[in-house]
């Protein structure tokens, strides 16, 4: 098991190194001199040159990369050109808002998605199954931004029971947080519920058709116990991987939803940075986002190894 974990860890470090190279190269490919972009076209050349030196832009590329990644490892991602503030500070400020939307959405989609998937597999061919299948087919194909806007139209404009946009931190006023987070969280969850339900259903169906389930039934074990004790356990293993994959989607979705509902989280910061070519924010955010994704995948891989010894064996002996 330890060998397996170490192997995974090395792979993660390689991936993060590659991503950091990509993030760093954004600035190199980005058109225009970053110092000039930051100061504007009116600024005197001396000031631009001074900033170039301050940002280490006069040094060779390899040195620039080492300085950037060295600082990043010490928790310093540099200053934002547009906001003129430390990027780490901005990320810290905005992260709770992003998590305030993303985490509940992930939780809801995992619980509801798995429940829907099991229900529709167990009741295969019934009305319930048809409903879940219809819901997940349409849900997977619906863009989050449109769901958000449709939700606003229905609940805020027509029914007037929810606010149009905005966000209040749960630590400030929990009631207001729920009131304002309902729509963003739901718009984000529906697509995820749909895809988790779809996957769980097909895994569960595959397991139900396995021989050991038939054997369990043949032994006369109650159907309920066959499903919950034998089928579900095995069907859930691949679902762990799916949840790992959803992290990518949920990050993409959160960026969109933050922009729809005017929530100043990391997603809306990234959009503004991209529009202003604020390259240090783009670099830093890409690095942080991929760290989160890699971290989640690492945990998922380990869990997978814990629950399914076959994976562990295969990976360990490779």
């Amino acid at each position, binding site marked *: 098991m330890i060998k397996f974990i170490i192997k995974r860890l090395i792979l993660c470090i390689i*991936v993060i190194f590659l991503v950091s190279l990509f993030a760093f190269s954004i600035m190199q490919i980005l058109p225009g001199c970053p110092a000039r972009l930051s100061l504007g076209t009116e600024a005197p050349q001396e000031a631009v040159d001074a900033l170039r030196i301050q940002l280490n832009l006069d040094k060779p590329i390899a040195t620039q990369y080492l300085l950037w990644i060295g600082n990043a490892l010490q928790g310093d991602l540099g200053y934002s050109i547009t906001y003129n503030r430390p990027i780490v500070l901005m990320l810290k400020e905005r992260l709770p808002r992003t998590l305030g939307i993303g985490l509940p959405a992930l939780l809801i989609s995992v619980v509801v998605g798995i429940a829907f998937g099991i229900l529709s597999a167990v009741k295969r061919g019934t009305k319930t199954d048809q409903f879940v299948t219809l819901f997940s087919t349409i849900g*997977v194909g619906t863009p989050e931004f*449109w769901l958000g806007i449709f939700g606003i139209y229905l609940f805020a404009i027509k029914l007037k029971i929810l606010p149009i946009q905005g966000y209040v931190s749960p630590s400030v006023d929990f009631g207001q947080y729920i009131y304002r987070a309902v729509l963003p969280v739901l718009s984000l969850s529906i697509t995820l519920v749909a895809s988790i339900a779809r996957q769980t259903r097909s895994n569960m169906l595959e397991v139900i058709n396995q021989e050991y389930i038939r054997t369990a039934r043949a032994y006369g074990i109650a159907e309920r116990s066959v499903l919950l004790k034998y089928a579900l356990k095995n069907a859930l293993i691949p679902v762990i991987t799916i949840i790992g994959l959803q992290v990518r989607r949920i990050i*993409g979705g959160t960026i969109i939803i933050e922009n729809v509902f005017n929530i100043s989280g990391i997603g809306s910061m990234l*959009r503004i940075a991209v529009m202003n070519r604020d390259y240090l924010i783009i670099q830093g955010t890409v690095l942080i986002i991929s760290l989160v994704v890699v971290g989640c995948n690492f945990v998922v891989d380990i869990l997978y190894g814990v629950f399914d010894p076959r994976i562990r064996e295969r990976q360990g002996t490779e």
Partner: protein
Amino acid sequence: MELTKTKEQLFLKRVRILFGRGIIVKICLVIILLFIFAAIFAPFFTTYTPTEQFLMNILAGPSKDHLLGTDQLGRDVLTRLLYGARISLFISLLASIGAATIGSILGILAGYIGGVIEQVIMRLTDAHLSIPPLVMSMVLAVLMGGDMLAISVVIAISVISTYIRVSDSLVLSIKENDYIIAVEQIGQKKWKILFKHLLPNCFPPLIVIFTMNLGVAIMIEASLSYLGLGIAPPTPSWGNMVADGYKYLIVNPLVALLPGFCIILIVVSFNIVGDGLRDALDPRLRGKL
């Protein structure tokens, strides 16, 4: 002769399975064809151009002159939807073809050659996969600019890792088969094995993924345009139409909501046809793709 006949029969059987699979696949296929038809012949369906403004008649509801109403600049919504279909379908097709071709070649090579080359390609793919497609395309969109070709390239790069991953693992499992080992034993050239045996066997799953990815590409394009990083106004794209219409949700909700219906309709259709194709080409893939 005998062989071609069985091949033909097999093909016909697959077509029958695809179309015999209930009414829903057929309806979705028709929906896709209708959208393609509407996109190609957009100018014939409307007397307006997508940027023509009728300032006396802004944010109007459906009427005889404007079947689906007008937007905040008095532009005909139906016309913009039709021209938007052009953008969405063209970009998604171009991006998917690009990603599928290059991605599958890279994946198949990685899987077949193995060793250092596979390690390099697959670790790069892992790194690529750790950046969400939307984030990747947002960043690349700044680098490339906002015309149709650039956006297609951006989306192609953002989704390419799926094809690399899948074709790599396909080749890894196919090359363990006895018939591949047999042709290797009789001294068949490597490139011949690659093109004659590995590639054709990778096709069915890749076609299924391609079909489903058309929908994914449409979603990414719409999201990018919604965020103001994709197709730049006044060129209509379903995404930027939603973004524009959002501000006028109270006056005329159709402007923001209709493009979304189009996106859902076409993406769901692609997914269902993809499912149908999967069952027709290789039922064993069920639950895996």
